[in-house]
């Protein structure tokens, strides 16, 4: 859930924010997310390794992510595992996005006479996203693919935000239309149709941009010169 920071998914509720015209929505969500994230500073006193630290800041710096002491893989393990594992993880992360987009785009522009369908599809994707995650041993971070996987989690966060935006947008439109009149369910008004089309275009554009950024960040970079410790040790002995 590291990459699932509300900042990353709340922009995809943009159609709803734009409809309600709440300017402080993102700011408020960010503040609440940071408040929850501040519980991280409660972990060093509970950690026995960090409890040995004399100061509070030393305990925080003892975490591997902050201190940079992340275990490294050998070059052979990186070559054999990195590409296929990263591609499989990304395809798996993009699966809910594909299902949601294809199902709703095929159905919604035709008629809105069955507004339960998009919500049902989106809820199905939510369930798939929440329950069909790999187990703790198959998490990308545990597979040690040799690349930082925070970008992968961010990719999952993009997909989650995309589904959340669809879910809230269709739910809001359905609730608003049911309050006004029952006939508006059968025929979409021009305002709601324009809202959905603009919102969907913005969502698609933002997701495309962020996906390109994620793939650019995950793609293998130029190899750095590696120094093998046994060779150096043998040379020093000779």
């Amino acid at each position: 859930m590291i990459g699932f920071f509300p900042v990353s998914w709340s922009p995809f509720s943009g159609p709803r924010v734009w409809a309600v015209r709440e300017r402080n929505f993102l700011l408020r969500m960010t503040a609440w997310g940071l408040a929850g994230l501040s519980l991280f500073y409660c972990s060093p006193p509970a950690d026995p390794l960090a409890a040995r630290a004399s100061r509070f800041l030393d305990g925080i710096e003892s975490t591997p992510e902050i201190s940079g002491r992340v275990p490294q893989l050998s070059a052979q393990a990186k070559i054999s595992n990195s590409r296929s594992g990263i591609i499989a993880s990304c395809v798996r992360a993009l699966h809910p996005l594909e299902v949601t987009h294809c199902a709703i785009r095929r159905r919604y522009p035709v008629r809105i006479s069955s507004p339960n369908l998009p919500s049902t599809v989106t809820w199905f994707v939510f369930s798939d996203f929440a329950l069909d995650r790999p187990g703790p041993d198959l998490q990308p971070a545990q597979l040690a693919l040799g690349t930082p996987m925070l970008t992968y989690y961010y990719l999952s966060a993009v997909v989650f935000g995309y589904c959340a935006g669809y879910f809230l947008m269709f739910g809001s439109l359905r609730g608003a239309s049911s309050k006004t009149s029952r006939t508006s369910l059968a025929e979409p008004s021009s305002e709601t149709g324009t809202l959905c089309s603009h919102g969907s275009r913005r969502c698609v554009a933002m997701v495309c941009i962020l996906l390109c950024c994620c793939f650019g960040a995950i793609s293998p970079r130029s190899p750095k010169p590696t120094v093998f410790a046994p060779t150096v040790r043998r040379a020093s002995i000779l």
Partner: protein
Amino acid sequence: MIDLLAFAYVIRCLLEFRLDQKQAWLSRAALVFGAGMANNWR
């Protein structure tokens, strides 16, 4: 399991917000998301 519980509560907050349109549900979702991130940091 705590991560899954936090994720389920976030989904529940989204569902409740979808029903009554109260902003407090989204705020709760953001707070629990942040707490889940802090728990899943390592």
